[in-house]
């Protein structure tokens, strides 16, 4: 399948293109436009975790992801007056996060080229930054270590994908966005989203294939 080829649009169970956009955040957004910071605080609390995970999978670095999210929310606050409400607030915010992550990663790549460091080095997971979360599952240390290594390799493979392929993989296969939402975020038709996603999965499968023999 070539880059420009798109799959035919097939009815998607999650496709709500023809429905009116119903946004749970519409009321808060209206208050934010009037300068209500408390309304914006509620939006931050609601969306911070999901946006942080998107940024983390896009950048591959936890601290960078935190920076990206802070900048993204600040940018959203500054430009909330321009948000027309023709998409969900979460969709609009995801677009901002992806843009910020792109520019952040570009800056980091330039810095890494200068310093001779690999971008795909999953330092956070390997260094045990998320040990607390894994301990909560009640697994043994050996299992935790194995899972951590596996996550590091998966993240490394995600990091090796093209920027566009990584975006659709993160949004669809990790965050569970519908094709319509991804199309709205990336401003592209569903067919393009699907073809890009299938190419991304194929590339990721090829990257992860050496791991499959180790899987139970």
């Amino acid at each position, binding site marked *: *399948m070539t880059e420009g080829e798109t*799959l035919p649009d*097939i009815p*998607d169970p999650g496709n709500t293109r023809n429905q009116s956009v119903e946004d749970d955040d519409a009321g808060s957004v209206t208050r934010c436009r009037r*300068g209500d*910071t408390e309304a*914006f*605080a509620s939006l*931050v*609390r609601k969306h*911070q*975790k999901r946006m*942080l*995970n998107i940024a*983390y*999978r896009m950048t591959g670095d*936890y601290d960078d*992801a*935190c920076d990206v*999210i*802070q900048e993204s*929310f*600040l940018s959203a*606050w*500054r430009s909330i007056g321009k948000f027309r409400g023709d998409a969900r607030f979460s969709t609009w915010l995801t677009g901002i996060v992806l843009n910020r992550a792109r520019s952040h990663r570009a800056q980091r790549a330039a810095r890494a080229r200068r310093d001779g460091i690999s971008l795909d080095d999953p330092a956070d997971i390997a260094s045990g930054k*998320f040990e607390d*979360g*894994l301990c909560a599952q009640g697994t043994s240390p050996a299992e935790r270590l194995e*899972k951590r290594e*596996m*996550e590091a390799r*998966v*993240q490394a493979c995600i990091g090796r994908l093209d920027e566009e392929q990584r975006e659709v*993989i993160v949004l669809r*296969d*990790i965050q569970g966005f519908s094709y319509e939402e991804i199309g709205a975020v990336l401003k592209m038709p569903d067919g393009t989203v*699907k073809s890009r*996603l*299938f190419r991304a*999965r*194929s590339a*990721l*499968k090829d990257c*992860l*294939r050496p*791991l*499959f023999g180790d*899987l139970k």
Partner: protein
Amino acid sequence: MTCSEIESRLCAYRDELLPPEEKDRIEKHISTCVQCGKALADLKRTADLLRDLEAVEPPPFFAEKIMARVREEAGRKRGIRRWLFHPLHIKAPIQAIAMILIAVSAIYVYQKGEPEMRKTTPLPAPIAAPEKGAVTAEPAKAPSHTADAAPSGRDSALRSLEPVRERPSAPPVAKPGKEEATAEFAAPHRKDRQPVRSSAALDGEAETGAVGQETPRGARDREDRTGPVGEAATAASEWKMMRRTGGIATGESAKAAVPAVPPRSVAGTPLDLRMRVEDVTAAVREIEAILDRFGARVVESRRLGQSGFMKVEIAARHAPAFRERIEGIGRVDPRNNLPAGPDGKVTVRIHIVGNP
């Protein structure tokens, strides 16, 4: 359907996006093809790995940190707007009145300010060369600045701080003899009998190197023009040429320019000098002491805040020496010297500005 076609549709198959008949064909193929079956299994494992990735948690007080920045920005924006415009019905008229006051003040300051703020300094008027007898060959030592000139200088300095008034020139206490003065004023001049160029012209020569060898004809023409009027016209034309070219004219060009410049009175257009000094009061005192020595007449003297203004009449032949002396007090602009002239008076306006 070939294996590669099947493999390209496996993602859509797994997401259940294919029509039923195509889905059936793929299932039949996979049941018989080990390679395609393995590809589908790998795809499922990839999806499982992605799904099982651990979600990261925001750091503690992450939302609070974000909101602190948001509130800071919101407060800054609101604060500027409020500071500028609220309440609008009070601040708008105040701002309008303030603008009008500023505009009126600016116009007033411009109109009533120091003269040098309003007009550019006119270029010095041409001055005729001194009489032939004043030109000597030997550079002589300058007259010593003796202490006996000091009392007169102090008195004149005190007078200079008074309001503007006319007063006669004070007689010099230690007036140098004629020979001494002649030697002093002639020091930078040439030895021959050619009409003396102004020291400004000589400066221009030294700086620009624009002076060529004078042609014999040019020199002869100069010598032919005898008498004060002719020499004055020559010097005036040279001065004019120097102003045009930034250097000094050659003999030929000077000759060509002579008819264009009518002879002018040396006491006609005043010369403007601008001085920048550390202490205006002390500078005025010293200038007056020097003026006394040359027998110059102070026409006007006044003090304007951190600056002073003096209008003096001085013998044209003393003008270059006067210029040299006052350069010892502070920086003098324009840099070109006062032109030397024949006997006669030249009016010099000195604007003294103190360094901030």
